[in-house]
């Protein structure tokens, strides 16, 4: 089975500014992102034949996309997969094109978090519930991994906080170069380490921004893509791995790696034909909802050996000027994290990098490069994995 490799091409993308967008409604966000994507692709809205719209908390109706864009009775599906929502919309769109059931498909993800008195609290349980699961912010869940990681690898809390801080500093630096990012200012390691605590050991700067935003992608077959542009981007692999609550149920759950990521990565590398990720990947976007997530993801993706990611962090391997730049657009940390949009925002940055349009964030040795867009999600949930390349 060849998988999705080289069967789908991205011909247009859009991404709104992420942040506290008081003036933008859900419909505005969808429209703005899709409009940019459509213009970028050089098509019109009426050329879109099917659409997938993702939002984690924005309600159930796919038809709201139709209302915003004024599409003419095309099939639209609402997609939800926690923080893998946006990448899953793109996955659906790609599969439809690869299956030959449509030629031009739209994937859009959005999230309007600032319309609720959003409390960064979790609580995705269904109505049939006794409410015994503690309603705690995602930070608290990821902090479980941070404390266990420090303990397992003998890292003293102060050193651990400094390693995490370096990741935050890196992403803030990258975000300061990105006019779409929610936060565009540099910070120092000292600021990060001494920031107010959110969920021990994660402080304010270890946690991603609470933001509104949307991103969109238009996909078609590689044959048709040539009609629209020369620098279309090929999808090399898509993998989604959904956890079955293994970590909380099994005492073997070690809380220092996310098996979902490892499995999705293994399958995606195979699908894309990558055998040495550290060497073959030029740029990566990973899911840094919290600094600890990014740290562990380096190991889960095979960028760093198990338990030794801190060495790469200290050596600056993943900085913009390093060996393997990660989160060149500021990541979830600085660009922000509207749940339903993030996955597509990651692909957007990779798309621009591959086209040489990443401005001050452009990774050297530009085209052709292979790069990786990777939204890795929430433990106990899913990891979606992309590899995109330009040829």
């Amino acid at each position, binding site marked *: 089975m060849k998988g999705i490799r080289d069967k789908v091409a991205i011909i247009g993308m859009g991404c709104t500014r992420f942040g506290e967008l008081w003036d933008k409604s859900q419909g505005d966000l969808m429209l703005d992102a899709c409009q940019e994507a459509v213009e970028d692709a050089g098509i019109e809205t009426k050329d879109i034949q099917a659409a997938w719209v993702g939002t984690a908390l924005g309600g159930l109706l796919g038809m709201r996309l139709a209302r915003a864009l004024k599409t003419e009775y095309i099939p639209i599906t609402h997609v939800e997969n926690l923080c893998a929502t946006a990448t899953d919309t793109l996955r659906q769109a790609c599969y439809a094109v690869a299956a030959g059931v449509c030629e031009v498909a739209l994937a859009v993800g959005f999230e309007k978090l600032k319309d609720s*008195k959003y*409390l*960064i*609290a979790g609580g995705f349980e269904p*109505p*049939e*519930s*006794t*409410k*015994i699961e*503690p*309603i*705690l*912010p995602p*930070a*608290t*869940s*990821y*902090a*479980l*991994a*941070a*404390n*266990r990681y420090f*303990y397992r690898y003998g890292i003293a809390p102060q050193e651990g906080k400094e390693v995490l801080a370096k990741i935050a500093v890196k992403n803030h630096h990258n975000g300061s170069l990105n006019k779409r990012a929610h936060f565009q200012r540099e910070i120092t390691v000292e600021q990060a380490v001494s920031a*107010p*605590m*959110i*969920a*021990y050991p994660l402080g304010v700067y270890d946690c991603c921004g609470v933001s509104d935003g949307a991103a969109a992608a238009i996909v078609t077959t590689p044959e048709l893509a040539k009609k629209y542009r020369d620098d279309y981007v090929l999808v090399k692999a898509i993998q989604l791995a959904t956890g*079955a*609550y*293994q970590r*909380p*149920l*099994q*005492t073997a*759950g070690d*809380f220092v790696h996310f098996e979902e990521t490892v499995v999705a990565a293994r399958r995606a590398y195979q699908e894309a034909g990558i055998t040495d990720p550290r060497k073959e990947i030029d740029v990566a976007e990973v899911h840094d909802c919290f600094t600890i997530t990014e740290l562990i993801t380096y190991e889960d993706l095979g960028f760093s050996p198990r338990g030794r990611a801190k060495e790469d962090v200290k050596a600056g391997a993943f900085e913009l000027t390093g060996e393997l730049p990660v989160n060149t657009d500021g990541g979830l940390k600085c660009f922000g994290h509207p749940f339903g949009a993030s996955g597509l925002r990651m692909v957007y940055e990779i798309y621009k990098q591959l086209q040489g349009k990443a401005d001050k964030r452009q990774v050297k040795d530009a085209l052709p490069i292979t790069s990786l867009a990777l939204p890795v999600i929430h433990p106990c949930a899913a990891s979606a994995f992309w590899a995109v390349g330009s040829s």
Partner: protein
Amino acid sequence: MIGITSYGAYIPLWRLKREAVAKGGKGEKSVGSFDEDSLTMAVSASVNSFGGIEREAIDGLLFASTTFPYKEKQNACLAASAIDLRRDIMTLDVSNTLRAGTSALRIAGDLVKAGSAKNIIVTASDCRLGSPGSSFEQVCGDGAGALIVGETDVAAEIESSFSVYNEVFDVWRADEDKFIRSWDERFVQSEGYGKTVADAIARLMREKNLGPKDFAKAVIYAPDQRRVEEAAAKLGFDLRTQVQDPLISTIGNTGAASPIILLIAALEETRPGDRLLCVSYGDGCDIIVLKVTEHIEKLRSRRGVRAFLESKQYVQDYATYLEWKGILKKERGPGKALQEVSLTALRRDWAEVIRFQGSRCKSCGTIQYPPQRVCTQCHAKDQFDLVRLSDKKGSLFTYSADYISDPLGVPVILSVVDFESGGRAVLTMTDHNSKEIKIGMGVEMTFRKLFYNEGIHNYFWKCTPSRA
């Protein structure tokens, strides 16, 4: 021979210095945490009374309190469930008087005598409130005690008992009252406690031809330190050697639980052959005379009162105490809306939520919490037994301290607990000292209240650092 075959107590971790309530206050009182109430404390005390007796053997539960969480919903039924007793037993709430605990003890003895049951738990628990500024606020403390009454290996035989009622309005609460009411202080003492207790004990002595010298210990309910000293002196008991310390200065007056808690404290120090007098007061008196046997030695390892007296932490301040008791509400940032509990889901999940049972896969032996129809390890479907995990010790695999989501419990400790018998659960930790939390530390399970909304007290289990 019928009598007490085991005991267990539970005193909350927290103390409030009386000085923090009002200047000049002496000593301290025990304070149940924001997630405790009379039901949760009674469950803890009852669980502490198990040792030699299997839960399967318990065929009765009498629950005494004046501060039940429910008025029309049997609290003993809920307690029996949380304690994971079998269903075909007698459950009964005994309420509305400060002598409910001893009344329940009398009833239990009579039930066993009549052959209606063989092993009955009698648990008494209270968390009464005095209104801010009152003497009751100073003196009342929270706590629970549990006794098992039966006829096998009796450690303290019930030799005799009787009751008198006294229809005086001295200390009371009407059905909507939150705080204790009382009348003129002199009246309360002379026509209530003082007169009734003295008369009742004197009558006992007369009828049984006993005197103070026949008793090793006198356990006498004390509204406060001074009253019990007066009563004891009047009756000729030696304060130093015979009268059980009423623990007013260390935990306070624990209401209906008090005579049971004080009786347990006394039993912890008795020797075979000792005779004990147990006197409660509340709308009258219950008097119970007990004789200790050699089986008392078997109970030395029970978690009685002594184990809990020194296990304590101080409530931060008076305002925190008022918040915990729901007397003061502070605005602490964007609050989250209270949530509706699905009662149909609760019924379905009862074993998991109230009995804290997990599943053990019959195919591969893996223990899982919550119970899983499909085994996470071997994927066998619908092949499991339910196993009780509430009595298993655990160790903390990892944790996190959430500083922003629940102001009352700041910080909220999310804990991944691995049970020594197998299985893992993700829970919140309560009664912790956040500076002393370490991966690998020992924890145990405790029954607590998550929240109250729309007439439903939503209970569940939390882990807590091993105590006592």
